[in-house]
């Protein structure tokens, strides 16, 4: 895969470039923002309770006087890292599962995909909530639980890809040379499904961000004094009549990020389809 189509997908139109820029800004804010801000994200300030946006607090303050912009940047750190790690988990489960199913084919494939279909129908958020409640609210567990939910899509896509390339000449050539199934899987199949898997993973990230916010909103995810976009939205919703900005700005950050990711994910997928059609 050359990098031209990647550039095309990420910067090919004004809108796409804006989305990429927004995501870059969010990542930067998550990494460096809290350190750059003059405000301590945890310090309670009794003189600035529920201040509207102003020149000193650009996005206003929350109900205990903490600077909202700093809190949002801190929340970005948690929300984005949960999303990235959970997506990585889902890719790590989904790729081997999908390639194996596609490679084995026949009954084994049918059974493995039947399991995926069945899991699709589970009330998964409930099980994630249970996991979190049962094993304590460690963020690590949240990553794992969410990743364990989101691998299904990746597995499906990867299986489809594997079915397509399984009959290729180079796989046949490898087999004739005496490569065993494990070698074919690791050396030939997995590297070739990696591209599509990563593209679909970009479409997984927004799903995980939303799921995390859902769980944190219920008070089951990230705990004070740590924060995430879900926690900020929950706090904002509590006092939205007196301080609507505390709901609106975190919601905007979340929505714009999810929207940008969806947008770029769609473009990447379309480009990938074009590439596939060309081959």
């Amino acid at each position: 895969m050359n990098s031209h189509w990647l550039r095309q997908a990420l910067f090919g139109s004004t809108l796409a470039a804006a989305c990429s820029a927004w995501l870059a800004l969010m990542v930067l804010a998550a990494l460096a923002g809290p350190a750059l801000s003059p405000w301590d994200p945890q310090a309670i300030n009794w003189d600035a309770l529920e201040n509207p946006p102003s020149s000193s607090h650009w996005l206003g303050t929350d109900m205990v006087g903490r600077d909202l912009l700093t809190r949002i940047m801190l929340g970005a750190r948690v929300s984005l890292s949960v999303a990235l790690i959970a997506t990585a988990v889902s890719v790590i489960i989904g790729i081997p599962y999908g390639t194996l199913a596609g490679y084995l084919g026949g009954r084994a494939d049918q059974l493995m995909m039947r399991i995926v279909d069945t899991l699709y129908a589970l009330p998964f958020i409930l099980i994630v909530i249970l996991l979190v409640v049962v094993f304590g609210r460690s963020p690590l567990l949240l990553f794992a639980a969410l990743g364990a939910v989101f691998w299904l899509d990746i597995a499906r896509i990867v299986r489809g890809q594997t079915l397509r390339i399984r009959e290729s000449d180079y796989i046949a050539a490898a087999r004739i040379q005496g490569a065993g199934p494990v070698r074919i899987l690791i050396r030939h199949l997995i590297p070739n499904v990696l591209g599509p898997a990563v593209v679909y993973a970009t479409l997984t990230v927004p799903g995980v961000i939303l799921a995390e916010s859902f769980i944190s909103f219920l008070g089951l995810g990230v705990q004070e004094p740590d924060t995430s976009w879900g926690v900020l939205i929950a706090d904002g919703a509590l006092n939205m009549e007196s301080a609507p900005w505390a709901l609106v700005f975190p919601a905007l950050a979340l929505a714009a990020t999810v929207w940008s990711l969806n947008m770029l994910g769609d473009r990447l997928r379309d480009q990938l389809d074009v590439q596939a059609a060309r081959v």
Partner: protein
Amino acid sequence: MTRYLSIRLLLTLITFWVIVTLVFFLLRLAPGGPFDGERRLPPEVEQNLRVAYNLDQPLPRQYLNYLSMLGHGDLGPSFKQKDFSVAELVISGLPVSLAVGVMALLIALTGGIALGTWAGLNTGTKTDLLIMGTANIGLAVPAIVVAPLLALVFAVWLGWLPAGGIGGPQYFLLPAAALSLPFVAAIARLTRGSVAETLQEPHITTAMAKGLPRRRIIRYHVLPIALLPVLSYIGPAAAALLTGSVVVEQIFELPGIGRYFVQAALNRDYTLVMGVVIVYAAFILLFNLLVDVCYARLDPRIRLRS
């Protein structure tokens, strides 16, 4: 067809059993039990409670007990809400959760299909761009954002609808709308792509060449085929809408079963958590089964294969 159905039914039952087993052991694995409150009970009392609720027996025994109880249609007593059985609690909350879920599903289907068809028939036009642009925004705004905003605008500022609680159908409108928004968007996207693709099929060209009226072509030749992907999306969507009601019930203070779930899980109220999961799972599985049956009836390839 019968073979297809019986395999489907068997798989549904197995899935149900897997869910029950998974949740049962997950709960028992958890540290803490239903009887450790703020005040420690005297050991004798706690022991008696354990005996009364069969918690003194070995785990496999408890599991078999639970399964046999379930087989008799009994969900057991609630460990925390002393005077209620789980069945009573579920029956009191279920109509509320179902009303919200079904209303949201109806909004999602009608809204999504109408918008998606409209956009799909006009691909590349301004209308299409506008509808899909809005749909993409809808996908990015979860219920936890939409619900408080809707409550703020329609209940607090405009005062048109109640902000929470329970009463006539108007009490379900805001929760259902908040819940359905992302699904309207998802179904619109799905329908649009599918309609646009179906329009390219040769049989549509034939129908147009015969000079059939446009409405007729859309209704009898395009939509039945174009809506197949939507049909298969209803299963996961229904699951997400039902479980999504957990959040909406919290925000709008609706006494549905979703609200029990989180509280019961935190309290280690084993039987109540199991009861809620079982009811949700039963509905979702039943729904998926129905969708599969409809799909098999509509798509001859599935019908013929088995």
